[in-house]
């Protein structure tokens, strides 16, 4: 990953909508290069929509996204996105190697075939996620965590300036989580900007230097200490949140819960996940 200008991402008064239904209104924030940013908020807060807009899947209704100060769309390949699992056809006849090589397609263009250098990059990215032994395996035969790692390797093969990951920690094994975390450290050293949406507020405050709190608009953006205050969390999650002594946060945002979630004081840094 050389010769790349790390990304400075500038979101300026952006509103997003599906048809007439607005999902995110008038959001402005800036992400300096090399930031590790956690995007948090309740279900339906607009986290995935924001990511979709950043890769061009969802048109921006108003406002502007700038990368390196240049309006969005001028860049071909500097944003990589790791999709949620449901967005991929797992029965498709492609091997792990094929999938990671797709990360090079942006650089190759439509007609050029992969050369030695592309193959080396792909092999290195597979090693980085610990999947080099699976290169020839069909993608559909892997476990969920392994598939997630293959898509991470593909994103790395894109050599992006900005890496977006939508819920990478949902439903994956501990080993995959560890690999993702150690890769985040590597990427920060390479000054790649990483944005991750997550439901795990504890992890967001421990392992990220910036947090973006959304609930259909921007509630707060800054360091975890700045963002995770009782006031902002109450604003984002309503009643379903609890601040523990020491600053840890518990939130339950599963489909309307009858009462406030019960705190477990012994595990100050744990949070209640959305799942199950």
């Amino acid at each position: 990953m050389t010769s790349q200008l790390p990304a400075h991402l500038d979101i300026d008064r952006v509103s997003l909508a599906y048809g007439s239904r607005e999902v995110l209104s008038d959001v402005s924030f800036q992400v300096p290069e090399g930031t590790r940013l956690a995007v948090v908020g309740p279900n339906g807060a607009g986290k995935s929509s924001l990511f979709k807009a950043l890769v061009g899947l969802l048109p921006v209704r108003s406002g502007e996204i700038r990368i390196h100060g240049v309006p969005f769309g001028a860049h071909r390949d500097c944003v990589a996105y790791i999709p949620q699992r449901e967005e991929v056809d797992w029965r498709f006849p492609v091997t792990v190697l094929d999938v990671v090589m797709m990360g090079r397609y942006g650089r190759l263009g439509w007609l050029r075939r992969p050369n030695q250098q592309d193959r080396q990059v792909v092999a290195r990215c597979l090693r980085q996620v610990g999947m080099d032994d699976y290169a020839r395996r069909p993608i559909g035969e892997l476990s969920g965590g392994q598939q997630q790692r293959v898509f991470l390797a593909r994103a790395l093969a894109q050599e992006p300036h900005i890496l977006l990951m939508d819920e990478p920690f949902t439903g994956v094994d501990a080993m995959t989580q560890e690999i993702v975390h150690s890769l985040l450290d590597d990427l920060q050293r390479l000054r790649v900007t990483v944005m991750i949406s997550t439901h795990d507020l504890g992890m967001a405050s421990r392992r990220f230097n910036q947090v973006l709190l959304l609930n259909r608009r921007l509630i707060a953006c800054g360091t975890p200490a700045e963002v995770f205050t009782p006031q902002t969390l109450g604003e984002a999650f309503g009643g379903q949140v609890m601040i523990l002594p020491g600053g840890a946060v518990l939130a339950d945002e599963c489909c309307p819960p009858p009462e406030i979630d019960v705190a477990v004081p012994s595990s100050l840094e744990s949070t209640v996940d959305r799942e199950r």
Partner: protein
Amino acid sequence: MQRGLLASTMVGVLCAVVGCYVVLRGMAFLGDALAHGILPGVAIAYLVDGNLMIGALAAALAVAVGIGFVSRQGTIKEDTAIGILFAAAMSLGVVLISSIRSYAVDLTHILFGNVLGVSDADLVLTAVLGGAVLLTIFLLYKPFLVISFDAVLAATLRLPAERLRYLMLILLALTIVVSLQTVGVGLVAAMLVTPGAAAYLLVRRLPAMMAVAAVIGAASSVAGLFLSYYLNVASGAAIVLVATFIFLLAFLFAPGRGVIWQRLRHGSDH
């Protein structure tokens, strides 16, 4: 017979390769609809004494655009739109053809193919159009793979997904038109889907799937044509039945994915 053999082999290979995308993208019903939708085009070309293939191609494209237009608003689902338009086009074609009594034989030929009536000009046209379709699929392997496998990546890479999808529809329409002569509109969907489905069971990568499907398509065309010749049965139907037989073999015995294989593996677990 020789011309027929050459034509049906070319069509078998072409249909099988294009059919891999039809299988993987779930476009089988659309392919069938396009095949039936060309009937009015062929009929009108007859009436005005024009080129049948051009008439067929125009009609196929019109049906494809029509389906896109009706289902665009989202109030009508795509498969409903396909069902409406393909039956309507087919009926319009039958009405047009039945209005001219002497063309009754030609209707059967259009529906089920007439591989023995292939002329040298047909052969050249098949080779040129088929070659163009295969070359396009070969050159655009990467973009087609990405839009089929992962639409999100296609957007990230700024691929013109909408235009590529239309291009794929055009390639499909061309393939169907070229196949008219050998298998007819009634059976072209089988030639598109069956070899690809069999190959999918046998191999694990798209290029291999296309190659295996092409071999199956060619083999069923040759075997089917010989069978039809010696048993004196309809050639298009014979070709499709051979392809179906090969698919059944793959379905039962394919390593890993075949029914027997899975039964055995399941049994050994206990």
